[in-house]
């Protein structure tokens, strides 16, 4: 893509959406990646030749997907209210969650993933527990299983539930602040993995929904998640941060050499090592270790830990 004028950057040449080009310089588009690769890395005098563009495109997209999974911090955020069945349908481009929070009165309460079963399918049975079938010989199913129903009506006991913000302990309230004579929350035999008074959730990947505990009924949820960067199949929107550009080329070179017949193993290995080293570099670059930020973190070094 050619460089753009300031007017194009700030106002998109007065074409809606005006903000289209804001921050675009950080990214290199998929179109540019494929064009550059075809121009520079494949040809009669290069290591790679006789490549079809669709092969290059495939590996470029695969590289971008891999980056989105574990290296890039391109987090998408979606806020929705849970539905009547206390669930949240996963967004179309969802791959994995980063954090799920309950939004209440301007505060985000991070929620814990429930390791207990919160849903189940069920078969209709008669009084003798024999499974009932329809005319086609298929098993019949109820709309909700007993597990589902108890999750929705709050009848399901959970190991996550506390008794309130201060575990029901006696204390003193002074100027709106609570004071206690001993540490709150100390509980012998407490399973720290599940110690959280906030509502909990569990993800049913196959159904594409997040189930919440019954206390989330009608509440607002903020889902932070990662996608694969494929922008719902719109190739012209796909891009990758320039800090990763060299890695993408290295990834494509390696993938193409690795799948090509007759390429010497030392060449494949060279490409593999280059790819791995560049991924490490790119991750370091993206970790944003600024002196200013480190200084802020280090200010906590003298804080007393009880």
């Amino acid at each position: 893509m050619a460089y753009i004028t300031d007017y194009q950057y700030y106002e998109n040449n007065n074409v809606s959406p005006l903000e289209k080009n804001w921050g675009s310089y950080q990214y290199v588009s998929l179109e540019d990646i494929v064009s550059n690769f075809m121009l520079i890395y494949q040809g009669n005098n290069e290591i790679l030749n006789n490549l079809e563009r669709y092969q290059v495109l495939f590996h470029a997209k695969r590289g971008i997907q891999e980056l989105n999974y574990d290296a890039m911090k391109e987090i998408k955020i979606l806020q929705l209210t849970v539905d009547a069945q206390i669930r949240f349908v996963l967004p179309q481009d969802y791959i994995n969650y980063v954090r799920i929070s309950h939004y209440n009165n301007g505060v985000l309460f991070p929620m814990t993933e429930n390791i207990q079963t919160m849903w189940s399918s069920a078969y209709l049975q008669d009084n003798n527990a024999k499974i009932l079938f329809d005319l086609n010989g298929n098993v019949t199913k109820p709309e909700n299983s007993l597990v589902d129903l108890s999750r929705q009506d709050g009848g399901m006991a959970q190991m996550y539930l506390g008794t309130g913000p201060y575990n029901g302990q006696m204390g003193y309230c002074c100027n709106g602040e609570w004071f206690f004579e001993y540490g709150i929350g100390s509980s012998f035999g407490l399973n720290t993995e599940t110690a959280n008074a906030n509502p909990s959730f569990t993800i049913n990947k196959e159904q594409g929904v997040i189930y919440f505990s019954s206390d989330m009924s009608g509440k607002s949820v903020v889902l932070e998640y990662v996608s694969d960067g494929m922008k719902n199949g719109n190739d012209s929107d796909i891009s990758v941060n320039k800090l990763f550009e060299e890695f993408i080329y290295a990834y494509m070179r390696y993938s193409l050499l690795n799948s090509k017949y007759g390429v010497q193993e030392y060449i494949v290995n060279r490409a593999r090592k280059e790819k791995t080293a560049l991924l490490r570099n790119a991750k370091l670059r993206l970790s944003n270790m600024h002196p200013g930020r480190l200084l802020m973190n280090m200010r906590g070094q003298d804080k007393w830990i009880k």
Partner: protein
Amino acid sequence: MAMINNVRNTVLAIINKNNYGYLSPQDFNLYAQQAQMDLFEDYFYQYNQYINRENQRQSGTGYADIVKSLEEVIDSFSVQAFLTGGTANRWALPADYYLINKIFHYPRLLTNGTTTSSNTNQLINIALAGQPSPPAFNPIGTGFSPFPLVGSLVVNTDTLTESFVNSVVSVDTLNLATNIFTSVVVPPNENYSIFDANTIVEVERVSQNKLFYLTSSTLTSPSTLFPAYVLDGNNITVYPTTIQAAGAVKTQYIRYPKAPKWTFVSIVVGEPLFDASAADFQDFELPLSDEPGIIAKICQYVGIEIREAEVYNFGTQEEVQENQIQV
């Protein structure tokens, strides 16, 4: 000096034996075409050979860059042409193509319409004023960019000729770089499309056996950014199927060399006299350096025609020698 006359004179001199070796102009033209085609095709095989040599570091640069000179000859047959649209996303290829080097697509159609009047080097369409995107001109430098931008591609979709926008004169008139609207009928009613000349994407050739895998994959499915085509007969089918705008698909291809023709005027007594001014005259299109090769080839054909083994052998030896030098 026409190369074809030199070749004919040389061939006649070689085959002349006791004044009975004769080659008629008609036969010469036939053999000349065969010889030229033979050498023309050879260029592509030689090109491949020299690429391989380059990769083995057996070929140099500068004056030793054989690949470059081969490319120059092949490129002298390079032609660009808009494809004629058939039904939907099917497009007809030019009849004279030897090798389709690339197909490309202009995805950004700025506007299209029909001319209402004609003037040299201008596109005039009075119906444009009042339409959603009429030409926007900038007579006193108001800071707005003219539309369509100077340099935009204008295609006469009836004649498939192209030009570029030089300036926007008014809301209904554009100045063009060349005269592509030449109809003398009033009103001319010539159809046109205007494209963004800077946005060009290559349409990739895909073999028929890969097509369905390609279109059914979410990662490689053809899009306007990465379109693809398959070849069947003298037509191509372009994917995605939405690529249908007239004048939006163009090709760069290597054409066949034109058939050489030694033209002449007959005189009552003696040899026909060479006439390079005849309307159907056609010289060889290969470079002058190929003259010995063409002569050797023609000698082989003529040797067979006049049943003269020595002529045939001479032609063959010359060709072998030539090839050895190149190796």
